[in-house]
């Protein structure tokens, strides 16, 4: 160790120290808030509020989770979001993949014009009000299909998938299959899809996260509370401070700082319950997400 250090200039040693410190700081700043939410959700709310919980849960309390499990709203939201996410992602893949494949075929002459047709929508849009009126005319307002149909194609994902098909499917396979009598449909279904599971999982995950986190659609286009997705329910509990069944909800609910601590504990619990699926799956999925960005950056 010392031997190695002797060969380094003072500047390089300073650089290494600076690097270690800043990386440590970045890690702490990124992960600690998430960790703190988790430990605060199971600690005694009074200890949390007075700052005596920092690195380890203290004075176990399940009050927040008991309240959450007794309240039906979160579970209705969860159910709705699951439904919208599954149906939405299925439609997304069904529409995006064949289109991406067609656009990746060089002999498909209109591909350039069509790419322009798609890409233009990334930079220019009709805006909120014409969109709202269109949904109204199509009877999509307050309809669960509004979570699924309008977002059927995400142009960014379409471009990623097209780039993948273009660069990763060797032309020789296509020629061989064609000689064996395959048409485009057969080639796509039997050869292109099985060879493209990597990109399918990547954009599938992108779509999944997009649906899971969708807050805007519920806010603007849906009125009926029973049809609202999880994110709207979360907004009401976390931000609008709506009271829980147990009466320990809003700061103004039962009044006083005592109630506030319990309200905060419910919030910590709600954050954990609603974010847990992502945190748990994240280490396994992370490399797929990264792959998507890489493929997307090959050809913009």
């Amino acid at each position, binding site marked *: 160790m010392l031997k190695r250090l002797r060969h380094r200039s003072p500047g390089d040693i300073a650089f290494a120290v600076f690097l270690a410190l800043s990386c440590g700081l970045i890690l702490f700043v990124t*992960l600690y808030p998430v960790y703190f939410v988790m430990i605060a959700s199971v600690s005694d709310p009074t200890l949390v509020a007075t700052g005596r919980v920092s690195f380890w849960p203290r004075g176990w309390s399940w009050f927040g989770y008991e309240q959450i499990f007794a309240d039906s709203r979160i579970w209705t939201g969860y159910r709705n979001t699951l439904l919208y996410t599954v149906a939405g992602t299925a439609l997304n893949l069904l529409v995006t993949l064949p289109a991406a494949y067609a656009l990746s075929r060089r002999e498909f002459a209109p591909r350039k014009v069509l790419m322009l047709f798609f890409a233009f929508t990334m930079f220019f849009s009709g*805006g909120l009000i014409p969109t709202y009126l269109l949904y109204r*005319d199509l009877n999509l307002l307050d309809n669960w299909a509004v979570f699924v149909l309008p977002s059927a194609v995400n142009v960014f994902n379409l471009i990623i998938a097209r780039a993948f098909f273009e660069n990763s499917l060797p032309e020789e396979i296509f020629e061989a299959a064609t000689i064996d009598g395959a048409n485009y449909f057969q080639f796509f279904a039997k050869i292109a899809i099985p060879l493209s599971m990597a990109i399918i999982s990547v954009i599938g995950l992108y779509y999944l996260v997009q649906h899971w986190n969708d807050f805007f659609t519920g806010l603007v286009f849906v009125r009926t509370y029973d049809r609202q997705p999880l994110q709207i329910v979360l907004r009401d509990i976390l931000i609008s401070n709506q009271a829980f069944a147990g009466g320990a909800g809003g700061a103004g609910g039962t009044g006083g700082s005592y109630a506030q601590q319990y309200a905060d504990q419910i919030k910590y619990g709600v*954050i954990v319950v609603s974010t847990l699926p992502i945190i748990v799956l994240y280490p396994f999925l992370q490399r797929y997400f990264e792959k998507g960005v890489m493929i997307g950056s090959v050809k913009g």
Partner: protein
Amino acid sequence: MTLIEPTPVKAAGRRSRAATGAGVPPPRGLRRHFRRYWQLWVMAAPAIAFVAVFSYIPMYGIQLAFREFDFTAGLTGGEWVGLKYFRQFFESPQFWTLMRNTVVISVTTLVVGFIAPIALALLVNQVIGRSRKKFLQTATYLPHFISIVVIVGMLQVFLSPTSGLITRFLEGLGLTGVNFLGDPSAFVPVYVISEVWQHCGWNSIIYLAALASVDTQLYEAAKIDGAGRLSIVRHIDLPALIPTMIVLLILNMGGVLNAGFEKIFLMQNPLNLSVSEVISTYVYKIGILSNQFSYATAIGLFNTAINFVFLVVTNQIAKRVANTSLW
């Protein structure tokens, strides 16, 4: 079942009227093209239809900004009123406040949110050891996948004036008595810092990819010339990122006034409204909540038009100066 011509050359041989030259024969006439490639059209059709309906019809509906909204006429509006609603917006007392708020939030986010991922990528790239690097990357991407509602919820509990974790930490540093969610002067910093916290790691991926493709010979040559690690970063790594930086800058410019509706909307409260009301939240309130459809469409169109101009201008400048552009 229609067979596909295996290769262009064979196609040319079998069909005497196909192009005689080398390469792919250009299909002559639309009917011919459809007959030959109808399957590709079928595959592309649903996506085309969805985009046509859900993106292009609203664009067609933009004319509502120049017309009187008429309930019976719907999307395209009734009588033509020209620039009436634009004039109404420019002359309204809200105009300059909205413009200032939108520009301040957008530009600050753009600048800080553009520099931070580059700095992070340069830093992470210096970390020696594959697994350490991977761990650092995985950790910094994580917040990107937390939903906006949860992020704002976390801000609220952490910045709570009575019991918040961050409030207490800042009090330890001597910053007492600031109610971060109620103080108008704290809104932009809180917004921008939390944006960087959430997206910095994720946005650095693309720069890390660019750094990974730098020729290692350059590093070796620099080391032989006696360059320290800092000067390698400055003279090799940073220049290697410039093309990526330009493309991303142009892309970001196209959304310069699209200051994130959802997060700003969720962070708004009566105390900070004087600095947090931006064009997009105003369009929502005017249009959806108080049903002034034509007026809100005009404001929205004004916003889109500015974005579009920014995009085109940045692209042209980048083309001239750095020979890099989107189109």
